[in-house]
């Protein structure tokens, strides 16, 4: 093995210029891909973070069928206290969950005594909501950063249209599930920035105010948003929760609950998927570059060394050893490209972080593009490059190992 390696490395040094050229090509590819993966990956993570941490949460639980009709926020599909208790228990049994926030959601009318418009109201427990959506408070643009009883946080678009300012008195009117209409006065406690661009019509009030408007004697919950400790555990936690809750059935044997990750709840999942697709295709391009360049160089190497191959074959080198000799050469070339490429890529990512490039997402301005250098990404890219290098050298190496020594020695 040591000798195969020594011969391979010396042959790479012998054709120095060609080796440098091929390695540079691979290095360029690795740099490009690793920087792209890092930048697009952190953009994606930041985007997901903005959405989940501002309002969505990582996972949401609803009564079965709620999400399908979520636009109308149906009060008839709320979870009764019995059901909420079951969910509470399930959540307590899952240590991966950091926090959760029960919400009452309903559609109502918002009036400033002059004009009226529709609004989506979220009744929440302030502390629980803030723990579940830690960026929530940062969205309050004017007013105190707090959700108080008797106060409402008005979405900025609506506030603008209705000329509502902090301190104004407004009325929220809603029809409860029995069909009776009720209203309640609120003080505008703050103006809420929308995360995903204009159009957000979600206002926030204290959950007890919500039960009052809806005249609930027993509190009914529309959704429970969940934040997990480690985002990477999203699907495991989701599955765990799903397993535990799917045991709960109606008398007809149908499941009572539905458990969704943010992916099912936000259209931005498509953007995330698109980024993943782009990353995949860029990686595919890298594979093509490595495959073609290594194969090309190894075919040349075999062709140039026909007489040498004939000599070592004549001396009695077994075909397998000759094969290994060339495969190791391709492997080394790939390894050099992967290592130098990773180092350079890492350096470029460092420079990007250092220069604090900013970008805007939705209404969030000046987010700093902090590309997290994930050593795993480099490892994955390097492993891909090395595996492809080995695969690309297999065919020429095989050809070398099958050479007839008599023919090879006659070769000029």
């Amino acid at each position: 093995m040591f000798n195969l390696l020594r011969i391979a490395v010396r042959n790479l040094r012998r054709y120095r210029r060609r080796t440098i050229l091929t390695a540079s090509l691979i290095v360029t590819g690795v740099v490009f891909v690793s920087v792209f993966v890092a930048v697009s990956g952190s953009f994606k993570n930041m985007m997901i973070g903005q959405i989940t941490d501002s309002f969505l949460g990582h996972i949401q639980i609803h009564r079965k069928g709620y999400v399908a009709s979520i636009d109308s926020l149906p009060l008839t599909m709320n979870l009764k206290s019995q059901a909420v208790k079951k969910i509470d228990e399930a959540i307590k049994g899952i240590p991966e969950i950091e926090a959760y926030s029960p919400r009452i959601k309903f559609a109502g009318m918002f009036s400033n005594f002059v004009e009226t418009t529709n609004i989506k109201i979220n009744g929440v427990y302030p502390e629980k909501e803030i723990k579940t959506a830690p960026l929530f408070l940062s969205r309050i643009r004017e007013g105190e950063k707090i959700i108080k009883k008797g106060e409402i946080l008005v979405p900025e678009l609506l506030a603008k249209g209705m000329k509502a300012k902090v301190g104004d008195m407004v009325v929220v009117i809603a029809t409860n599930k029995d069909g009776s209409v009720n209203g309640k006065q609120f003080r505008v406690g703050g103006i809420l920035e929308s995360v995903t661009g204009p159009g957000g019509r979600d206002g926030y009030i204290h959950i007890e105010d919500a039960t009052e408007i809806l005249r609930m004697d027993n509190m009914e919950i529309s959704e429970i948003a969940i934040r997990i400790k480690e985002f990477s555990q999203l699907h495991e936690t989701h599955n765990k929760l799903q397993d535990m809750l799917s045991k709960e059935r109606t008398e007809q044997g149908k499941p009572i609950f539905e458990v969704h990750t943010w992916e099912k709840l936000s259209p931005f999942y498509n953007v995330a998927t698109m980024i993943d697709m782009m990353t995949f295709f860029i990686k595919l391009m890298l594979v093509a570059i490595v495959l073609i360049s290594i194969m090309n160089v190894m075919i040349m190497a075999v062709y140039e060394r026909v007489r040498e191959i004939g000599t070592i074959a004549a001396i009695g080198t077994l075909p397998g050893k000759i094969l290994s000799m060339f495969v190791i050469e391709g492997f080394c070339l790939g390894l050099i490209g992967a290592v130098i490429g990773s180092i350079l890529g890492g350096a470029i990512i460092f420079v990007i972080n250092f220069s604090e490039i900013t970008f805007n997402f939705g209404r969030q301005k000046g987010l700093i593009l902090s590309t997290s250098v994930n050593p795993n990404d480099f490892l994955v890219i390097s492993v891909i490059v090395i595996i492809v290098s080995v695969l690309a050298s297999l065919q020429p190496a095989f050809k070398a190992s099958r050479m007839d020594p008599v023919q090879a020695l006659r070769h000029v």
Partner: protein
Amino acid sequence: MSLVVAENIDKDYQAGEISIKALKGVSFQIEQSSFVSFVGPSGSGKTTLLNLIGCLDKPTHGRLRVADTDVSTLDQKQSASFRGNHIGFIFQDFNLIPVLTVYENIEYPLIMVQNVPVQERERRIMSLLEAVGMGEQRDKYPDQISGGQKQRVAVARALVTNPNVVIADEPTANLDSKTARMVIDLMKKMRDESGTTFIFSTHDPRVVAEAEIIYTLEDGELTGREAKGGTDDV
């Protein structure tokens, strides 16, 4: 039993439509420790015959035994390991591995073909380096030494595995006559020391004279055998 026994060997090459009869009914025996030369003009079949004895190729017809093995029955892998264990090669163009030093070239078959432990390896290489007079050049690369020196290294490489027979196809064709003579003398000296059989081909009359048994090839047929009873010069 003789080291090499050839009985009625034919070798045909298929070159497109026509078939070339490179060897026609060749029979001979070569004894252990002999110093044998095949002589003949270009195209007479010397390389073809040495390739057969060296187990690089197989006869079309006839029987060929080398070191008590019927070499015509071996497959690619078996032939390779047979060559690695029983045969040493010296080539007309030296064919040293350019990326290995003199020392490493001699070491190559001991690592890559046989699996000789490091101390034994060192011992054999050092004594051969001395024997062929290349001790001082041991760390040089092939492109840093002369043709005659390369062929001396090649002699050492051929002998390092302790083969039964060393095959040398026109080993002096690329050397000036003085160097050629030195290489042949070296080969004979090595035969004397190790008892290894040397079989070489040549069409150089001055080199032929060094052989103890001379076979003449003409148009693929063996036309003469001359034995000189162990004496050196003519």
